[in-house]
């Protein structure tokens, strides 16, 4: 079973990288940008048939390692 984890900075946390990318794109002529935030994408494949168990295993990984819960939030999607 395969999952995708998308990690982004929490809404109110400053995203210096996103800010610079946004400014650069604007400088390159993209004029309809409203907002841009940068994040991380991780694919995880598990040897587990029970979707519930697999999901909670991935969630556990997020909390324990993948995500810095102080400044980041995450979404898990089955793919």
């Amino acid at each position, binding site marked *: 079973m395969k999952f995708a984890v998308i990690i982004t900075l*929490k809404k*109110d*946390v*400053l995203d*210096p990288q996103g800010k*610079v990318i946004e400014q650069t794109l604007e400088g390159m002529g993209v004029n309809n940008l409203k907002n841009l935030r940068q994040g991380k994408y991780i694919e995880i494949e598990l040897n587990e048939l029970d979707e519930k168990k697999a999901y909670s295993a991935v969630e556990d990984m997020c909390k324990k390692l993948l995500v*810095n819960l*102080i*400044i980041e939030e995450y979404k898990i999607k089955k793919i």
Partner: protein
Amino acid sequence: MKITNNIVESHGLKLEEYSKIKQLLSREPNYLELGIFSAMWNEHCSYKSSKIHLKKLPIKNKNVIQGPGENAGVIDIGDDDAIVFKIESHNHPSYIEPYQGAATGVGGILRDVFTMGARPIALLNSIHFGDPKHKKTKNLLNGVVSGIGGYGNCIGVPTIAGETKFNSTYNENILVNAMAVGWVNKKKIFYSKAKGINKSVVYVGSKTGRDGIHGASMASAEFDENSEDKKPTVQVGDPFTEKLLMEACLELMKKDSIISIQDMGAAGLTSSSVEMAHKGDLGIELDLDKIPCREEKMTPYEMMLSESQERMLIILEDGKEDEAKNIFQKWDLDFVVIGKTTELKNLSLKFKKETVATIPIEALSSKAPLYDRKWVKTKFNKNKIKVKDLKKIKFEEAFLKILSSPNHSSKKWVTEQYDQMVMGDTIQRSGSNAGIIKIHNKDKAIAVTVDSSANYCKSHPLIGGKQIVCESWRNLISVGAKPIAITNCLNFGNPENPEIMGEFAENILGMKQACEFLDFPVVSGNVSFYNGTNKNNIYPTPVIGGVGLIKNLNKIFNHHFKKIDSNVLVIGKTFGHLEQSVFINQLYNLNEGMPPEVNLLNEKNNGEMILKLINAGLINSIHDISTGGIILALAEMSISSQIGVKINKPKKLSNLSEYFFGEDQSRYLIEVDKSNYSKIERLFKDNNIYFDNIGITQKEYFELDKELKISVKELYDINNKWYKQFNGTDC
């Protein structure tokens, strides 16, 4: 919103303090005003518990241009050159989010320096962690080190000295103190004092977000179990924007358009505007609709208390707005006139055409509470330790155990993560007595060092305070610098506890004695109280940042042995003081007795003698003797040079461990050519300087009589293995 007692307390204010607010305003404050008071009246901004003690410290000598009270201290180093420097803590944010906490700590201290018109030329840090075996230590250590590096490396200021220490007292409350040093032409120093009515108040730098709202109050309260969940929005450092802000400010400072400038540090817009108005004895009116915001629908409360990084407030001369704006636009930074100075001495805030707060400036500054908190003298444990009564540990085993311990092993794995060479003026990098930076395009340099000795300060705050100032002095002398002034970062526990307040008061007295005797004043600093969790206060840990001047670039020294067959001498008397030494603490796990006493007269004599020998060209290398005693200092001299030494037992030796591990103060090791020996001996005798001739440098082996013989290569490996084992990687 009705202000209830709960709301008052959640702002970290006591109910008596709230009554005082009502009295000063002659009415109840609104919620925004309460927030502003809480930010300005907390310990971090008001120094309410520490001020009466800090006043005792000497703050002037003939080199001091600016003492405490500005963004940073300034000293004169001759010609038109001045050095700006300060140390500051970022302990609590670093415990919550080590990378960002440490990074923003570096960012904040850099702003303090370039706000005064100085280009930062060096960074230093003093970081203290809990027991390496504690479950949080590894993560905190790695996060803090990469955060410090991440910020300093990116902005391009070399990190050239520091200390990394471990002690279980910091298990739940690490210390992250960062120091920045800058160079400025002394005719172009900028201050925060506002001048003139109706002048434009300008906001420059990053946008304001909901970062670290009430960070300053967080730094002024103890942690409890819940504080990790109560995390306020953590500030994220953006060294790239800071680099732009620094270049833009320095570019604007070349023109004559700035009246005053202040960075937005703790308590952001609130403290910066109040500070400028207070010093200028005038008022400030701000239009909050103009504040550049990062998030939608930010409230006045959030704007005034946000601790978003990389922002500055500037008061401009009339008609200079366009010139200034062009510079900030060149660097892609916000530049907005957000208000003006006023004759009425109020902080007055407008939002959506309404006045939302009006507070007399003096209520937020000179009328803030000031406490003479109750304090008690520290009870000393005067036990003497007799080595004969202790379990016998073989000399070699004891030595190697200390050499490979977390506190005394090589810190290359830390310093190799910091760019030490950028800017091209680093003469001495981390790992010697002090870092040395050349003044760009000039024939002079400054030496810088940070030091602390929490063990000594805990067991005897007064002696500890003296000792730590002397250690800083000694480190500067050891590279050939004339010590000029210091900055101090005072990390203590809860000041409402009379014992802790006692540690603070006595520690300051000790510093005062040493600073006065050595003419080594304090020109800037920071107090960090409430370090501790659940009533478990940390050891008192004042950190001293010292700066000295080197006028002759040919007379610079480090501790690396230079040649084979030179004499090695110990300057200063060795009594064999083992109480509070590493030997006793680490090998026997004993924490008894008093720290070594400091004789200020000897300190001064010995140090001045070293400078004389340096000027006479009689020394090859120097090392100060500090924790671990003579044997550790000798090992460091060998390891750094790969030159061995044959050490003799002194004739009148009472006990080997006492002599070689004892931590008596005011001592140095020097390496001298044999041909100069008799000349030096005469000088010492004429000047009443005590010395022992303890050995001769030799190839390959580090050797002490029959006790120890080990190759220098092996010593190097032993000194370098700890981190690899701890972290499971090389670097």
